[in-house]
């Protein structure tokens, strides 16, 4: 590990990290925003579930590189548009989250939703006030997985010219320079940890009862 190189190139490292963050944030949000309604639908309707859950599984099997390359052709975007990456990563995020979210809603349980209805929540209120918050913990766990895998996948964008920490992989590879690749790997992991901490903290703020309840169990 050549620390002098790291120090000399800190500017570029930070720049690439920032670029990395920029393409990662949106897909994480979008996948949550898209997966939750899909999962709610799949959770409530057996027939929808039979179609949606396997389809989300198939998305997961898409190899990333051709997806990145072919999306501009499909979307009519420009070749280097980060939007391509955002769309592709969102697809993966949705693929990961739909199943988790369906399971999360299943775990809330008919009984508790039934109880909420029985005391006078409207079906819409049942979703917003009961099912969604109670599905919160597994959704949060799913979002953490999505965040980690998104941050790791962004670097494949280096193969199609979208700047990110992945630049250090291809460039370091071409130059036979482990330090540079390591910087990319460590940078990605550090970003993943930062994202994870942010998500966990957000979770604590949004789901205060989880901790209160956990403490009792020790």
């Amino acid at each position, binding site marked *: 590990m050549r620390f002098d190189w790291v120090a000399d190139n800190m500017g570029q490292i930070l720049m690439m990290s920032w670029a990395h963050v920029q393409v990662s944030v949106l897909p994480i949000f979008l996948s949550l925003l898209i997966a939750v309604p899909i999962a709610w639908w799949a959770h409530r309707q057996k027939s929808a579930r039979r179609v949606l859950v396997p389809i989300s599984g198939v998305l997961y099997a898409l190899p990333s590189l051709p997806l990145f390359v072919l999306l501009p052709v499909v979307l009519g975007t420009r070749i280097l548009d980060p939007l391509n990456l955002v769309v592709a990563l969102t697809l993966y995020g949705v693929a990961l989250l739909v199943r988790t979210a369906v399971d999360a809603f299943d775990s809330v349980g008919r009984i*508790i939703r039934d109880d909420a209805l029985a005391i*006078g929540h409207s079906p819409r209120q049942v979703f917003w006030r009961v099912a969604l918050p109670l599905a919160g913990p597994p959704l949060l766990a799913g979002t953490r997985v999505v965040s980690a895998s998104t941050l790791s996948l962004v670097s494949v964008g280096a193969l199609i010219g979208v700047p990110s920490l992945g630049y250090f992989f291809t460039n370091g590879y071409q130059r036979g320079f482990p330090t540079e690749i390591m910087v990319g790997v460590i940078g990605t992991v550090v970003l993943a940890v930062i994202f994870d901490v942010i998500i966990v903290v957000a979770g604590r703020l949004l789901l205060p009862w989880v901790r209160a*309840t956990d403490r009792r169990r020790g």
Partner: protein
Amino acid sequence: MIRFDHVHKEYPDGTIAVDDFTLEVPSHEVVVLLGSSGCGKTTLMRMVNRMVDPSSGSVSIDGDDVAHSDPVKLRRSIGYVMQSGGLLPHRTVVDNIATVPLLLGATRRSAHARASELLDLVGLEQSVAKRYPSQLSGGQRQRIGVARALASDPNILLMDEPFGAVDPVVRAELQRELLHLQNELAKTILFVTHDVDEAFLLGQQVLVLRTGAEVAQHGSPANILLDPADDFVANFIGGPRRHLRTEMRDGRHIVVDAAGHVTGVLQDDRGAAG
């Protein structure tokens, strides 16, 4: 007043849960549905707040068929206490109690003030207000369930085995408190249980049900105890356990059931002498 009129319920899977049931629950009285598991008690009770709609027949409240009312509004106007408590695990106790007032548009402040009053009413300290349901004992949870059901001051309370999940000492306490509360509030209460002692303790009228919610006997507790309509009822309410005799032991009169097991001590020899 709640009226069931030739009510019948067949679930989509073909189960006939209720087969032609008719009953009038007078206002300000406690009527208990007593029967073993699966006989249709919960189904009957949930017809009142339209959680279940009858396949045929009708349920009406004070003469208005509930089928014509908006289910969400209807449910907000009826208190419902369930065996599991049915509390929202992600809301604090005070928020749980305040659920219905808040749904009805009360301000947070007034809803919480009401919740405070109710905590007093059901005999809980104010300190539990900020806890979550999982941080309470079973008995406390059931009290919160009752408080929540009372929050919007409904005329009708539906109680579905509300004390089934707590241990016997706490249960006895909760039963006493319910009687006390009812003395004060005089709600119309439909109460479901499979515990014979509980039914006889709480009900002004008791209905012993067979499968399909068929009424095996309907009457006052003493009535049923003294004159079981048939073997099913006699057996259900305890059979040999209810056939008592007294014995002398250690110089005192004790009461023994048909199988020879001691059930209590005779307090008053005059009574025993008839």
